């Protein structure tokens, strides 16, 4: 299982990486915004994308839309981990085809739960 973690704050990338490691995922790559993330995803091999929303360059929502628009990536599970809390934004993310939405600040338990749910659904 190869995972891409995208956030413009390196501290948050480290936190998410460490949590994922604790959950047993060790094959993790990072990117600091959508623009650097998309080519990595398109190069292939990723099974799961965890991304922030508010980033310079290309935002997480635009990255999600680009992923869904790319036939090779359309089915990639995507989890948004973001401080964006407007209802209309959550609705927008849902409509764009996000698989999970975790609001910052979050707990280790919340992240574990959402990831668990995503893979339950993907597997079934």
């Amino acid at each position: 299982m190869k995972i891409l973690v995208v956030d413009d704050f390196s501290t948050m990338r480290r936190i998410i990486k460490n949590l994922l490691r604790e959950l047993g995922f060790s094959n993790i790559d990072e990117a600091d915004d959508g623009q650097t993330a998309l080519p990595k995803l398109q190069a292939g091999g990723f099974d799961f994308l965890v991304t922030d929303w508010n980033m310079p360059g290309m935002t997480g929502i635009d990255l999600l839309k680009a992923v869904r628009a790319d036939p090779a990536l359309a089915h990639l599970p995507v989890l948004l981990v973001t401080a964006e809390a407007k209802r209309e934004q959550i609705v927008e993310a849902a409509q764009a085809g996000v698989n999970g939405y975790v609001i910052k600040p979050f707990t280790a338990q919340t992240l574990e739960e959402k990831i668990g749910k995503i893979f339950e659904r993907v597997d079934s």
Partner: protein
Amino acid sequence: MSSCLDEEMDARLEQARSLVNALENGDSSQADKLIGELAEMSENQMFQEVGKITRRLHDSMNQFGLDERISELADKDIPDAKERLNYVIEMTDEAAHSTLTAVEELLPIAEGLNERSNNLLEQWNRFQQREMPYEEFKAVSKEIGSFFEYSASTSEVISKKLTEILMAQGFQDITGQIIRRVIQLVQDVETNMVELIRLSGGMSEGEQKTHKEPELAGPVVPTIATNDSVKNQDDVDDLLSSLGF
């Protein structure tokens, strides 16, 4: 305009002549009166000028939309920025305390592990050098068993505490986002102030600076949160499940 100025000049000249006359005739009370009148005249003129400048400044500010933006800054954005910065203090305080608490709980655990393992190591060495009677070895092997149990349960506590420390570092992302917004606001205030100074200096040409709201709302600051934002993960989950998630 020029005839008005001429009239003013004529009146002044007339007064100056009367003043010279009064002084030549030694009429000091008349001279004082005339000096007073002249002073009053120039004061009135100054007030009129200040009035005109104020009017021009006000018009220019309206024209550039500065008036509205500055009162918006003063009424809403600056108080909001104060709340945001207070929230930054709160979050960093919370993160520092939860990190310190976890460390304070971890240190005695590390000391306990160290002490017990040193103790056992000493006995283990004696056992290996065949210096330990069988009866004592029975007691020591029991102790080794309980040490294994102890270290299994403490390592669970240790990883739990380490995760707490890890999660506490999330403050850097949230507070960083909030501070970036405050920096944007300071820049906005600066731009408006510069524009204001430029206008009051009488240079009224220049481009209009329009204020741009950030596209994304950013982290929720509890004290200034509006109803169109969710408050926590449960709200997010509820909203998503209402959308059929």
